[in-house]
């Protein structure tokens, strides 16, 4: 059995660790709240840009645009959004696993755009081709980052270097559930007629005036639409990361409590055993003197 002194030392170490995990939990809870708020704030814009795009697509009836053109895929690009840091349970590895599956499933050549340090490190170690990486995106630089990524993939797509571009990230469903999903961002798929019309049936009937023209509006709208999809992915990744981290730290704190309880019990037993031993030695010694 471990000595009393060892047990005391282990209890102290575990208590220190618990303090750290508790603090990290509080920090990620606060950051999660802010990240979640950002996701909520981005929703109206997201909804409306889809509506407008749906409206344009339906009202203009089959306007063509290079970003909408479906080509025989020869090279596929995956934009993978992970977090920069760990200590968040399976958050990053779930995304990485999903990406690995997707990559094995494609029949074409492929390349990766790694957003977030964890994903980049993993894929670089495995020797995957990483076309571009985005690390350490600040909390207020997320839209700018989305813009950078968008202009990069649009350039590559227009140059016919990539024929399909997918976004893989963890959808923020709630604090406990994040689900990795794959979204096709190029060739762009405007919301379908049902999707756009769904609630607003009149979309189809309204004869829209387009200025300067349906094509010109579409040409400006599509990049914004892609930007928005990536921006949303970034926000959800952030919110998901903090909530995963919070949950992980919560569990760690609980585990530490349990461990401290067990160690304290063992320590008390050891202490009692020692006292009993000492008493019996004294009693034995006294008995020997009689």
């Amino acid at each position, binding site marked *: 059995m471990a000595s009393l002194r060892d047990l005391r030392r282990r209890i102290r170490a575990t208590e220190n660790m618990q303090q750290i995990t508790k603090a990290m939990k509080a920090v990620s809870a606060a950051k999660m709240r802010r990240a979640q708020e950002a996701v909520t*704030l981005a929703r109206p814009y*997201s909804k*409306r840009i889809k*509506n407008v795009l749906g409206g344009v697509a339906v009202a203009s009836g089959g306007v063509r645009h290079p970003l909408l053109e479906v080509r025989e895929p020869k090279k596929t690009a995956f934009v993978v959004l992970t977090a920069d840091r760990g200590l968040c349970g399976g958050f990053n590895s779930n995304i990485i696993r999903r990406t690995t599956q997707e990559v094995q499933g494609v029949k074409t050549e492929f390349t990766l755009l790694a957003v977030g340090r964890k994903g980049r490190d993993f894929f670089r170690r495995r020797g995957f081709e990483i076309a571009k990486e985005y690390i350490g995106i600040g909390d207020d630089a997320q839209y700018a980052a989305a813009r950078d990524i968008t202009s990069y993939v649009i350039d590559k797509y227009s140059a016919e270097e990539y024929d399909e571009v997918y976004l893989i990230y963890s959808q923020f469903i709630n604090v406990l559930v994040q689900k990795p999903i794959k979204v096709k961002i190029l060739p762009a798929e405007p919301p379908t007629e049902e999707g756009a019309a769904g609630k607003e049936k009149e979309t189809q009937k309204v004869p829209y*005036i387009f200025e300067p023209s349906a094509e*010109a509006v579409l040409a400006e709208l599509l990049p914004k639409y892609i930007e928005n999809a990536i921006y949303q992915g970034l926000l959800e990744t952030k919110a998901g990361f903090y909530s995963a981290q919070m949950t992980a730290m919560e569990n760690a704190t609980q585990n530490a409590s349990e461990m401290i309880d067990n160690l304290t019990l063992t320590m008390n037993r050891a202490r009692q055993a020692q006292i009993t031993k000492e008493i019996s030695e004294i009693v034995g010694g006294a008995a020997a003197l009689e």
Partner: protein
Amino acid sequence: MSENKQRLEIVTPQGKVFSEEVDFLVAPGAEGELGILPNHAALITSLNIGIMRIEQDGKKFKVFVSGGFLNVRNSKVTVLATAAERTEEIDVARAEAAKQRAEDRIAAGSPDLDLARAELALQRAITRIKAASEK
């Protein structure tokens, strides 16, 4: 909704900036400024970087928009912009810094410079400063 009012919503990825009933608005459309009164025909247009002028209950005010789109339907006007601020909320110091940065970038003219983007950034900064100064 009253007869002579229209709902104006200005939405950015960072949230709704504005959502109220207004009487009249002028927006910096891609083909020149356009004024919109209630009961305007359905319209979708792209916007330039510029200043929107809004009249509401006899009051006039201005909103900076960094380009985007304007959508009118059923007397409901939706402006989708990547950034929008009411003129009194513009952070002039930040705009000045952005202007400086954009000018430096254009002046330095490094080979990997995205000139179009730098010029847009410069235009945004100048418009912001102008909007803030003439309120």
